[in-house]
């Protein structure tokens, strides 16, 4: 409850007035010499509990009457979300308005944002005078002064945009503003749908710091939380998760990984028609998605006429309760440059790997870069389609970064080095060095000596006995020819310790089934993979530096890395609205919207062009996450701060706050009436009356 005339509340001690009068009356008793003590003693014994209770009730109702009068004079506001807090009018009101896509949800025709806006404007009516109002839109980083109620209406008139809200950051900004401006007592009005991803409830330390910051302020700051978290009856969202461009020329094909989510987890199966628009080719394709659970991901392939030119399009589902998440834009184009980073402790091997990964120096779209040991920490691994790592396995921060790189679709190929190391990478490590020895027990210094030493037609030393030919880097050619894996010589190798998918096994000729060991192992992690090759391409290790196998294998791997990391590689084409504030100064032009429609690159989804570069901007992925906090959970985030919660889904519409002083006056009247009734003398029939005849003669029946 908020009071428009809170000064009157200083009069609250006046409610003690009836009590004081009562006590004063008792203290101010007078002495009276009394003759008829026998009756008084009798009466004192008989005085009923009801009579005593009535005395206290009379006192109580007098107190209530004064209290109600004071409340009435304080002009309380109630109703809607303004009635939730017992407080006086603040000096400043900071409005935080969540305009993220989820706020476009419409439970009953009107969007959550529109309802929030209406509730805030109605709430402001009570504070039209005397309170300073500042607004913080969720896309803004600074508060904005609002001069009048009309100005507030204009400032809030914008619709929902496609950026994600970060309520914790906004509240931190508000706290800092309070710290710097010191504007007096304040209220922070937060209108949000309590989407969990916007509130980040898991960051308890952050919230604790925020609350401590507010509590450390010299002034009191209260929070009024308008929770527009009424569940939507029917809402689906669509998103292009990945896209890959396969083939060239007429055989070019665009593969889209499309995900459809629905808000409610229902057992019933629904069919969501998804329309894929190719904006550049003015084509569209309808595909039906069948949802059994909350999500369904499906690959959709479209033939592209001119992949080299690139293009854009969008995926769309029919209108539902939240129209904002029914469209997802995409941009495609040729892969462009694919880069390989080579980290090698042996410079010869490093150079060889570089050439194998990018055999044609004239092809600038396929490059390989040698990474010096000193600069490993600064390398931006995500720029590369593949990383070749020869030597001791990465450890520490570099290992962590590389694993993150793998998770996002990266490809790392590890080759062993000469130095012994117990380091493990993704659970796999190098075992002891194994050398191929001659009959005298002497190790061959190189595989070439093995070739020289072997008798004609024989293969000396261990050989690859089996390898994965179905798919992967060692797969057969399109014509069905196998790679010459069994022709490789190994003078040195290291065993691979750890679990993974064995792509190739090595064994002595004599007893392959007993002595087979893994030579190439694949470890799948996240969207990417790590491949461990038990030998290196050099004379001292194996004939990989001579065989055709290695370039083919690496070429296939770099292409796989480029494809699997295409989400990452296309990150500079597929952007999330508002996630990169550094681009606010760039002048992007909308190209994918309706005719004549002007869009804001920073806040709205769409296709934008800056020069020759075309990007697709979509709402952030976290905006599609359905879970929203319960009102109580959101209140808990504020710790000890006073929070008034209004939940739309429980309390209906956030109506107009009403002045309810009349109710208090009525209550006061009721209290006075009850008090009057209690002190009412008994009726003539009930009263004990002692007759006093003027003549002294008492009738027989008289009392």
């Amino acid at each position, binding site marked *: 409850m908020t009071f428009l005339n809170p000064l009157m509340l200083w009069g609250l001690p006046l409610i003690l007035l009836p009590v004081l009068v009562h006590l004063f009356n008792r203290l101010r008793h007078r002495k*009276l010499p*009394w003759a008829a*003590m026998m009756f008084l003693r*009798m009466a004192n014994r008989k005085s009923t509990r009801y009579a005593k209770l009535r005395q206290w009730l009379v006192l109580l109702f007098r107190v209530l009457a004064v209290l109600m009068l004071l409340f009435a004079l304080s002009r309380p506001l109630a109703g809607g979300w303004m009635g939730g807090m017992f407080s006086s009018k603040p000096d400043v009101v900071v409005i935080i308005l969540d305009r993220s896509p989820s706020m476009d949800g419409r439970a009953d025709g009107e969007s959550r944002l529109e309802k929030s806006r209406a509730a805030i404007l109605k709430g402001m009516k009570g504070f039209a005078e005397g309170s300073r109002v500042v607004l913080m839109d969720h896309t803004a980083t600074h508060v904005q002064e609002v001069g009048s109620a009309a100005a507030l209406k204009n400032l809030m008139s914008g619709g929902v945009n496609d950026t994600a809200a970060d309520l914790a950051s906004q509240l931190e900004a508000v706290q800092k503003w309070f710290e710097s401006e010191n504007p007096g007592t304040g209220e922070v009005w937060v209108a949000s749908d309590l989407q969990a991803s916007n509130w980040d409830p898991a960051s308890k330390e952050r919230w604790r710091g925020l609350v401590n910051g507010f509590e450390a302020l010299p002034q009191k700051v209260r929070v009024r939380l308008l929770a527009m978290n009424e569940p939507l009856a029917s809402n689906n969202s669509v998103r292009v998760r990945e896209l890959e461009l396969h083939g060239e020329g007429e055989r070019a094909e665009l593969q889209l990984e499309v995900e459809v989510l629905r808000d409610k987890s229902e057992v019933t199966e629904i069919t969501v028609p998804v329309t894929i628009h190719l904006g550049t080719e003015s084509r569209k394709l309808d595909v039906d998605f069948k949802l059994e659970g909350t999500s369904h991901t499906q690959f959709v392939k479209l033939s592209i006429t001119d992949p080299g030119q690139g293009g854009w399009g969008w995926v769309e589902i029919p209108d539902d309760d939240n129209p904002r998440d029914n469209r997802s834009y995409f941009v495609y184009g040729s892969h462009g440059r694919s880069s390989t980073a080579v980290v090698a402790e042996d410079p010869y091997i490093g150079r060889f790997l570089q050439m194998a990964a990018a055999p044609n120096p004239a092809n600038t779209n396929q490059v390989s870069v040698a990474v010096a040991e000193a600069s490993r920490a600064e390398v931006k691994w995500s720029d590369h389609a593949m990383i070749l790592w020869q030597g001791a396995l990465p450890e520490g921060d570099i290992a962590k970064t590389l694993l993150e790189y793998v998770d996002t679709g990266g490809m790392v190929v590890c080759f062993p080095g000469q130095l012994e190391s117990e380091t493990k990478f993704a659970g796999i490590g190098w075992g002891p060095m194994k050398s191929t020895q001659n009959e005298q027990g002497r190790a061959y210094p190189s595989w070439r000596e093995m070739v020289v030493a072997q008798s004609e037609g024989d293969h000396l030393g261990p050989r690859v006995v089996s390898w994965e030919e179905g798919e992967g880097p060692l797969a057969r050619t399109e014509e069905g020819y196998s790679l010459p894996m069994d022709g490789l010589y190994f003078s040195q190798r290291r065993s691979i310790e750890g679990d993974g998918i064995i792509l190739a096994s090595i064994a002595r000729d004599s007893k392959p089934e007993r002595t087979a060991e893994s030579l190439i192992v694949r470890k799948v992690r996240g969207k990417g993979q790590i491949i461990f090759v038990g030998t290196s391409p050099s004379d001292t290790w194996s004939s990989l530096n001579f065989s055709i196998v290695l370039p083919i294998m690496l070429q296939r791997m770099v292409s796989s890395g480029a494809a699997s990391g295409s989400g990452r590689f296309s990150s500079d084409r597929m952007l999330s609205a508002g996630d990169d504030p550094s681009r606010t100064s760039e002048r992007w032009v909308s190209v994918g919207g309706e005719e004549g429609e002007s869009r804001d690159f920073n806040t709205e989804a769409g296709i934008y062009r800056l020069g020759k570069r075309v990007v697709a901007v979509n709402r952030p992925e976290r905006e599609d996450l359905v879970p929203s906090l319960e009102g109580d959970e959101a209140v808990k985030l504020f710790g000890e701060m006073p929070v008034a919660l209004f939940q739309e889904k429980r309390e209906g519409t956030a109506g107009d706050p009403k002045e309810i002083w009349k109710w208090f006056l009525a209550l006061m009247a009721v209290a006075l009436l009850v008090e009057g009734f209690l002190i009412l003398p008994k009726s003539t029939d009930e009263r004990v009356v002692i007759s*006093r005849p003027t003549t*002294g003669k008492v009738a027989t029946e008289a009392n």
Partner: protein
Amino acid sequence: MEQDAYNEILDGDVLTRLSGQFLHARQPMVGNIVGHHKSPYRGSSVEFAEYRKYVPGDDPRLLDWRVLARTDRYFIREFEADTNLRCYIVVDCSESMSFGEKGMRKFDYARKIAATLSYMLSHQGDAVGLQLFDNGVAADIPPRRNPLHLKHIFDTLAKAKTQNETGLVQELHQFAERIRQRALVIIISDCFCDVDDLLNCFEHLHFQKHDFALFHLLDPLELDLDLDRPIRFQDMEGSDVLLAEPEIIREPYLEAVREYLVRIHEGCNKHNADYRRVSTDQPYDAILADFLVDREMLAKGRA
């Protein structure tokens, strides 16, 4: 000085107004001289009573000669005897009688009634005595008829003061025992004592064939407890103190008073007492006038 004291207990106007009235006994009185009241014995008044057979020893002068001549039988003709009465006015002068908040003090009221009745009785030739008591006998003036005796009564009443607790019950018992001859006993008291004991006293007086009347004096405040704020009640006849809120205890108080009054009234009726409940805010001359008229009506009716 003496005149001022008399003014406190006597009002000339009241005496004048009541001078035309006569205080009758409600039953035959045994007096020692001829008076205005009926006697239980036959006498020589002009009022015929009855015929009775002559028995030897009767005075032959009382024979009804006409009846003898006509019937040849001996009958004695008897007439009523008129005698005077002895009246005892018993006034309670315990400390509780000094209470007087709304009306005059009960004791002052009692003195006025006692003085007025003494004057009237004396003037109609009856013997009047006075008994003052608190927890013992404070003054005991036997009934006499002469004017000097009346002055003695006035002086005693004028000087009387309230004191001590009431000993109404034991004093009335002793009084009933002491006065053997039937008399008119007028008791003026607030009767703040045990009702059962008091009714025993009345029974005793009734048994002794006394014609007794009770002027039950009560202050209006004692009858309605019309007080509006907490009061520390101080017992006038003891050291008890009671802090109470009249609003809370009024109902049970009035209930107790009413029950007490009903029992006294019923007891008086039972023992043929002339009960007068007097609130001290009422004019005492009206009370007395009614008292006298009732008795006169009764006397005439009986005649």
